[in-house]
């Protein structure tokens, strides 16, 4: 089997997906949704609703306990190990806790996906410097993550996720540590990628952002997922605010 993206196949397809951690309660229940190529979604839900868990099914860290996940048209449970690895190289992830490697510089952290993909060093130098400059870290390329502020670390994490122009970009609360201006700037970066064809899913609590960009959202509540189309976001947001706001 090849992992060439199947033409016109949905980027992701969840069919009756349930998920639980070893011995734990069911966290995701009977989830059903499709991400079409080039789509842009926010993912919302209270803290502990299962956003990170759902994303981990999308970036192939876990398999569902029930149901089936297809990525680019292929059922992930039936894929060969090598094919899963190839597929992961088309997925960029911004982790909620960044997962930067402290013994590497900001530059080397961002270069990591390219090195794994075997890109030439000369190209790596050019692309990584460009991107780090774009996120405003041109003077911190040689700095190690522990010496960076939370917001700077987050930008390194985002740069690392987008450096190889992924087909699918997953971001887990990627703007939690930056001010609104920077959050918008980063969202624009995701938008740029989206315009180039990348499918984007962003888990966020930032109502301002959701309102500003108005993309459809995948909303998780007690393990159940509902897809809220673009034009309903305002109503949804007011409901959330009435309940004391999203977490």
């Amino acid at each position: 089997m090849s992992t060439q993206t199947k033409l016109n196949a949905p980027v992701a397809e969840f069919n009756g997906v349930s998920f639980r951690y070893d011995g734990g309660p069911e966290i995701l229940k009977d989830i059903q949704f499709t991400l079409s190529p080039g789509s842009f979604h926010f993912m919302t839900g209270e803290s502990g609703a299962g956003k990170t868990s759902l994303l981990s099914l999308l970036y192939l860290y876990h398999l569902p306990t029930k149901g089936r996940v297809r990525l680019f048209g292929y059922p992930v449970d039936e894929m060969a190990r090598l094919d899963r690895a190839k597929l992961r190289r088309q997925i960029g992830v911004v982790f909620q806790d960044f997962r930067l490697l402290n013994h590497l510089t900001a530059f080397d952290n961002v270069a990591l996906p390219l090195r794994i993909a075997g890109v030439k060093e000369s190209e790596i130098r050019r692309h990584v410097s460009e991107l780090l400059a774009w996120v405003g870290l041109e003077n911190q390329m040689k700095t190690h993550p522990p010496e960076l502020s939370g917001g700077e670390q987050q930008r390194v994490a985002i740069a690392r996720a987008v450096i190889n122009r992924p087909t699918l970009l997953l971001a887990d609360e990627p703007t939690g540590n930056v001010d609104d201006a920077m959050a918008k700037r980063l969202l624009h970066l995701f938008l740029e990628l989206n315009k180039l064809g990348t499918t984007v899913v962003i888990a966020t609590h930032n109502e301002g952002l959701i309102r500003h960009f108005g993309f459809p959202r995948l909303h998780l509540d007690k393990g159940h997922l509902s897809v809220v189309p673009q034009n309903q976001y305002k109503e949804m947001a007011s409901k959330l605010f009435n309940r004391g706001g999203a977490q």
Partner: protein
Amino acid sequence: MKQSRLFFSTDSNRLFLPWMSMLMGFIAVLILAAGMSAYDSITNWQRVVSGSLTVQIPTYTEAGDPRGEVVNREIETALTILRSSTGVKGATVLSDSQMTELMIPWLGEGAAVSELPLPKLIDVMVDSDHYPDMAQLKTDLAAQVPSAVLDSHRLRLEPLLRLSSGGIKLIGFILILLALTASFTVIYATRTSLTAHEHIISLIHMMGANDWFITRQYAARNFNLTFMGSFFGLLLALPIMAGVSFLIHGATLDFIWNPALDIKQWIVLGCVPVGLALLAFVTTLKTVSDYLKRFL
């Protein structure tokens, strides 16, 4: 940035593995050197001994008086009997100077052998494919030269040969234990390092690194560390081997155990670091790929 720097920022392996492999390389080299030279010495004894037989004719009576002319007559008779027996290729009397040489290890240079009450020795060359009938030979000799003592080195050396081949088996066993210990050491060190770097490995895996990308870095690194360590072990063993060799020469015990090694045996010793490093390489590959199975 070198790829090997991806994982190994701080790692106890960097000291642990070279030290352990130095120790194991050192022991392996010494044991192999001892084993190979002992093997050579034993095959040498066997070659010398298996084709020979001696007959002793006493030159003194049991009371300590010289037996005189009768000795020479007995020698002649014994030689005639021996030379006419089937399976005997030749028989010669050892000269006094040959006797002196034989006794050097026991008595030292310049011993006056002729003044000692030593028997005359007849060296009998036998056809090892058609070994003479010892019982028949004994009866024949006893009939005409009652004083003659037939002595088969083969019989006397048998227990010694058994002992030495047992020793060689023991050395083989120790080498196997050593290889196992080396493997376990590598497994332990690798697992420790994998656990310490789990966050890095899981991240790299999630970014789409295939298993080989990770295993080869570990395996290559452990190969290098083990090679370095055991190479120093080899270097460390050399002066010890020289020392032992010097002591054996000094004690003129070379005829029992000649510690000299030939070129092939030196090559075998030179292969010890490479062998240990390869063992570490293969063990690491297996350990890391088993570990990676925990990731989807």
